[in-house]
């Protein structure tokens, strides 16, 4: 069957997680109504206007984390910060809303995650999408994650192509894998754990890119426009076998530029292999640091019997 017989499909849902809570997208909302298999190309996220009016609130792409599963197969390694999933956040400044106009509010911001490969979703198999708010507990030190809100609505769209009835079931499918390391520390040095940026699958992982987000040592957080600051955050990356990906400590914003916060890399990671990430700050920052870096890739999985 040729690709041009596929039909575009967009499945949309709205969920409302509570503060420090999690919520799942209703499976039926993102279930292919044509009852056939589909290829998922992109997943989009956006949040509602925050209530409360704080001037230094947490951006939506830092506040929220997502967990995605294909049936029982994990696509993300537990929860991944949205800002580390999608490298661009279109709509305007992260903490400078443009109120007033009918189309000019916080809700203009949209994150689109382009999957590294189209994901084949067999018929009758559910795509699971869970969202979690990453706020800190009340009473903790001032951090970028202590923003409080009363209501929050999150829009989620699964964008892809619906396959015809007679589309042959592939013998193996390419399933994305995203795993994250997250630093919330005032220390001058942070090293990711070995099971953070790891290929914990039983098959090799084709790595495609790293996506990073940071507040760059500022209290008023605008992760998407991270610029040089008096206390620049630097990053170094290496493979578990000692191979250097970033040899020296370089400014974080050079590895993950502000307009498109990704570090492309084509590499093959064997099962159990991992990437070690080291962050340094020359002096203790005046704000609590938030850094999230995710490794994106895909692995091949035999189709029969692995989806439940």
């Amino acid at each position, binding site marked *: 069957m040729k690709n041009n017989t596929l039909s575009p499909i967009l499945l949309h849902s709205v969920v409302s997680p509570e503060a420090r809570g999690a919520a799942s997208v209703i499976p039926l909302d993102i279930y292919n109504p044509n009852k056939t298999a589909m290829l998922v*190309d992109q997943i*989009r996220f956006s949040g509602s*206007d925050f209530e409360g009016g704080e001037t230094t609130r947490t951006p939506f792409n830092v506040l929220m984390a997502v967990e995605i599963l294909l049936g029982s197969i994990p696509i993300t390694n537990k929860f991944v910060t949205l800002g580390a999933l999608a490298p661009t956040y279109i709509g*305007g400044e992260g903490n400078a809303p443009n109120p007033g106009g*009918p*189309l000019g509010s916080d*809700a203009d911001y949209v994150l689109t995650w382009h999957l590294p490969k189209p994901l084949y979703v067999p018929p009758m198999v559910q795509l699971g999408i869970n969202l979690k708010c990453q706020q800190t507990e009340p009473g903790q030190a001032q951090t970028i994650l202590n923003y409080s809100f009363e209501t929050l609505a999150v829009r989620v769209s699964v964008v892809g192509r619906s396959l015809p009835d007679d589309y042959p079931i592939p013998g193996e499918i390419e399933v994305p894998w995203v795993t994250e390391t997250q630093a919330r520390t005032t220390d001058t040095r942070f090293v990711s754990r070995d099971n953070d940026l790891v290929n914990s699958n039983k098959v090799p992982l084709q790595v495609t890119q790293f996506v990073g987000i940071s507040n760059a040592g500022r209290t008023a957080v605008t992760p998407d426009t991270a610029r040089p600051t008096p206390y620049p955050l630097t990053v170094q990356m290496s493979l578990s076998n000692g191979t250097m990906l970033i040899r020296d400590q370089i400014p974080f914003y050079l590895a993950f530029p502000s307009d498109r916060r990704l570090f492309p890399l084509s590499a093959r990671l064997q099962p159990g292999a991992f990437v070690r990430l080291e962050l340094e700050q020359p002096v203790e920052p005046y704000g609590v640091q938030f850094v999230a870096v995710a490794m994106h890739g895909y692995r091949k999985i035999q189709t029969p019997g692995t989806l439940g």
Partner: protein
Amino acid sequence: MIFRKAMPGFPSVVLAQNPTTNHPKNKKLGGAPVVFSAQTTLRTGQSAVLNAQTLQSGFRTPYFIDEIRISLLSSQFTTAATLTGLSGLVSVLFQTGSYMFSNDAVPVGLLAPIFGTDYGTVMVSNNGGVGDAVRGSSTVRWMLPKPLFMPAGDVVLANVSLNDSALGILNTLFTNDPAVRVTITYVGRLVPQGFEVSHRAVPWLAWWTKSLNEEYKTANTRLRNPFVNPAHVQRFTSRTYESSIASYNEVPLAAQAPTSAAYESIHISDSRGYQITNTRVPIGHVFDTARHAWTFGRELGPREQFNMEMVTENFSGGEFDPDYITNVGLVGYRKESL
């Protein structure tokens, strides 16, 4: 498209030395690069056909057009928002022989998902002299869905127009210099004399528009395949413009929350009865906001169509000022025999 082999005697070294094809789907064909360009100046409500002599090959050989670039220049548009606003005011209608690219003039912003890299940032001085007016330019780069084969001596005619507006926007904006210079450039490759194809892929564009002041509107048959052959739909494109008596700016596609003020949402199905979206979806979720497009690839049979309806959510009587104009386009091609 079925290509026959190049004629015997065609110097293969030319192919090797001129890897000029810009179109990733057709790199193996190669060919010497060709660029044809023409420009005209438009005033409010005017339209013009660009000089056909300068838009065709003078080599008397067939050629391919891989992409079409459209530059818009005006002294009144010197900010990023207004520069992209021009893409909603200037429309173009292409035609080659008896084949139309669209059945209506299409706003140039709907042709391509992204502008050129100089979009919104390049301010060129008029004659380079001190004190000259600063002019802004924006460039749309439309990579055709398939390279367009052009027989020797054939040309794609371009009819451009500067749209008037019911709000009289242009009269205000163009007080000092009511002109927009439109430059259209075809980028392609020469192929040897005798190179033959039995069919060619002619681009096909369709579009429709809605104001936020309209509570509900459908595309009706605007997104239909009017041909007797299947059409290949490459993508939907969309742009939103803020329109007032004094300005016409592009704004981001919105993805409003359910509790927000008025915003546009879209529901799409097709004439086969299949749901393309499962519900009404904010336009910012239908299209990739970074590229103003939803690219998928879909064959649309003869007389088939996409049914698209747009709704102003949280509508409270309309009369938004400024108004918000949302254009939605469909970009694809159909095969036509030569």
